[in-house]
């Protein structure tokens, strides 16, 4: 068991992948000489050379397409996009090529592509760099969407993603990068598609992913002081959803709160809520609640950004309202 | 009144008591009570309907003539020709 930051865990994962498989290469803006916009790939250019650590022009559409082509050609590309906001420029390549070439070719081609990008707000970088669009990606059939919320998952999800025959999108929350956490090298590869109960409880289920996991655990500790035991589920995988884990928990707690940094309307949180209603209606003892971001452009001013994003106090208040009404 | 007209009268009386009856599938020589779920109240209402339509008195002792469609037609035909 070793301790490292989330950023170091990503770097370890990349290094291991590049080391183990000559087909693997990393491509993206500033991943080489600059060491990555968020320093995730620092030192890799020196270690593996410019053939395998490739700086690209500022053209997401182009290098996403290059990655898809390389994957079709037998390589195992890892494409890094600086933030989810910029990835929108490459959405055409994702939706119209990566996600559907297996289907369009009648199963003759597969696209074993891994795409990594940062997501989320809180870093005071304003409205164009702070969104959480992973739920949009989770709308697309044909790809797998994961969000490592722990340092251990940041270390090992890449390894599992590279084993997949179809595209995998890894969303790394920007605020997690400097977080310290434990990594147990002996645990080996992780199951990409299983949600994990990060804290057991019996009165309410908090369902979350990525950067909101820590906020949910903080809220759960506050609630525990008030005698309310919240179960916290880390989805890990947004597509496909591990409904079995969610439903099992809701069957026990009878209440669910979904915490998601994306906007509420038309969100992935709405999808989870609908699925609970469809598949677990008779478990519910209260309407499903959601804690999401305010439906405004994410503000620049610190106090306003904090107010716009879900905070532990919002989660605590939502749970209290849900439970305390039972006199 | 010919046999076809009599058959129509009998069928409409039957449908009055057993709305699920399908005239197209009823067989002429198979007992009606084997083809339709008729109890004695249904049967009485069936006889009453024919009585009202044709103005004929039908004695209880004549009820066995109404066992099948064809026997009922023959019975009514001879009864009408006598009256």
């Amino acid at each position, binding site marked *: 068991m070793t301790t490292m930051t989330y950023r170091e865990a990503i770097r370890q994962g990349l290094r291991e992948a590049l080391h183990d498989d000559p087909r693997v290469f990393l491509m993206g803006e500033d991943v080489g000489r600059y060491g990555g916009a968020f320093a995730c790939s620092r030192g890799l250019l020196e270690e593996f050379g410019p053939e395998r650590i490739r700086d690209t022009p500022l053209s997401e559409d182009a290098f996403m397409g290059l990655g898809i082509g390389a994957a079709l050609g037998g390589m195992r590309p890892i494409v890094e996009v600086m933030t989810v906001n910029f990835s929108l420029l490459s959405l055409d390549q994702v939706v119209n090529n990566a996600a559907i070439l297996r289907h369009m070719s009648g199963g003759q081609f597969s696209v074993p592509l891994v795409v990594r990008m940062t997501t989320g707000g809180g870093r005071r970088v304003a409205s164009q760099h702070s969104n959480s669009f992973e739920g949009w990606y989770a709308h697309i059939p044909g790809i797998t969407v994961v969000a490592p919320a722990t340092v251990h998952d940041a270390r090992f999800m890449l390894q599992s993603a590279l084993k997949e025959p179809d595209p995998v999108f890894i969303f790394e929350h920007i605020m997690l990068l400097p977080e310290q956490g434990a990594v147990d090298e002996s645990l080996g590869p992780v199951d990409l598609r299983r949600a994990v109960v990060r804290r057991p409880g019996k009165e309410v289920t908090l369902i979350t992913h990525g950067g909101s996991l820590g906020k949910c655990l903080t809220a759960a500790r506050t609630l525990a002081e008030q005698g309310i035991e919240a179960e916290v589920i880390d989805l890990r995988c947004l597509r496909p959803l591990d409904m079995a884990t969610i439903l099992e928990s809701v069957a026990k707690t009878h209440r669910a709160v979904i915490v998601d940094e994306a906007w509420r309307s038309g969100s992935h949180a709405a999808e989870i809520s609908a699925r609970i209603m469809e598949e677990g209606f008779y478990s519910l003892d209260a309407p499903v609640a959601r804690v999401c971001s305010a439906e405004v452009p994410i503000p620049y001013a610190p106090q306003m950004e904090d107010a716009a994003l879900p905070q532990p106090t919002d989660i605590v208040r939502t749970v209290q309202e849900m439970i305390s009404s039972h006199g | 009144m010919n046999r076809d007209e009599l058959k129509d009268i009998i069928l409409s009386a039957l449908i009055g008591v057993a709305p699920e009856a399908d005239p197209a599938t009823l067989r002429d020589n198979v007992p009606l009570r084997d083809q339709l779920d008729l109890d004695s109240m249904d049967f*009485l209402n069936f006889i009453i309907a024919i009585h009202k339509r044709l103005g004929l008195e*039908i004695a209880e002792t004549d009820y066995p003539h109404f066992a099948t469609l064809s026997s009922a037609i023959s019975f009514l035909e001879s009864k009408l020709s006598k009256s």
Partner: protein
Amino acid sequence: MAEFLMPKLGTDMQEGILVEWLKKPGDAVHRGDLIAEVETDKGTIQVECFTSGVLEQILVPEGSTVPVGTVLAIIKEEGAPPEAIRQPVVAAPAAGQTAAAKPLEAPPLAPTVKPSTVGQRALMSPAARKRARELGVDPESIHGTGRGGAISLEDVEKAAAAKAAVSTAPPATTTASVSEPAARMARIRQAIAAAMSRSKREIPHYYLSTSIDMHSALSWLAEKNAALPVPDRILYATLLIKAVALALRETPELNALWDGQQGVIAKDIHIGVAVSLRQGGLIAPAIHHVDRLSLEELMVKLRDLVQRTRTGALRASEMTDPTFTVTNLGEQGVESVYGIINPPQVAIVGFGSIVQRPWIVDGQIVPRPIITATLAADHRVSDGHRGGLFLRALDRWLQEPAKL
């Protein structure tokens, strides 16, 4: 001012659908008039009123589902002063939807109605509703502590624990707002399931059976019918029902209703006649005061009742007050019928087919038409001895058809 309430048309009924108003505001109504059609588990029932006056205001629009006891309309009694107009209990429902529950201020004059039941379905979480059904707890009896008075899972479990000692409630039937035939059939099936399960669970049945020679009765009836025009003819079932009513006069313990503690002897003899429905299922509505009807009157009522049962046009009182049931499966060729008592009644008699049997009459073996009558009775209320007296009296009456 009199309130016209959603009636309880059976022990298991929780709510009903107001299908159609047969009178409109301003119409004069008389005690006994049919003023509304209500759909229940057992079909569409026409409900009569018990007050004469003027139908002043309709509070529940057609198509609404409301709990038993809800004020459906206000009837201004003859000579009474006008009253302030009341707020409708239920808003007009959107097409195809059950009316939404609407909170209502406590009505100014509602001595017979609990405010909590007026015009609203209890707010209840899905988990609580499911649990209440499993535990057989009536949602109307639970105090909700959730938001807006909603009943939570915890409320249900507390309520169930509180009444565990006297858990005699029948399972709540699922309610439906649709009235297409399939749904009606499903509800009839469910009502039968609830009543029969309860009967077999709670009532210690005993069974007695006897063979009755129908020679006298049938010969007498054939002679009588020969003189009658077709529409006036009498079915032998009429004789059986009348003979049952007269035998019950002699054994009143069997013409009783179980009140939870004991059988209470009914002062009138209202015979429930089991009528099978063409689509399946059965209903046993009552013919009133059978012991006082002539055979001719009884036959007219029987024909009318069978027809209305099968077309779904029964009246409220016919559904609720049979004091004894007769079931006749002879049409299907069975020899004997061991009935299940329909609670809160305490007995039922079943008749099989009339079959020709060798019978000894005055020392000679002769063919005779024989029917098997089987009594099922509640041993909490009567004993085999009384049951035997009943069957003996039944036999005696059937040997003297002219006296029926």
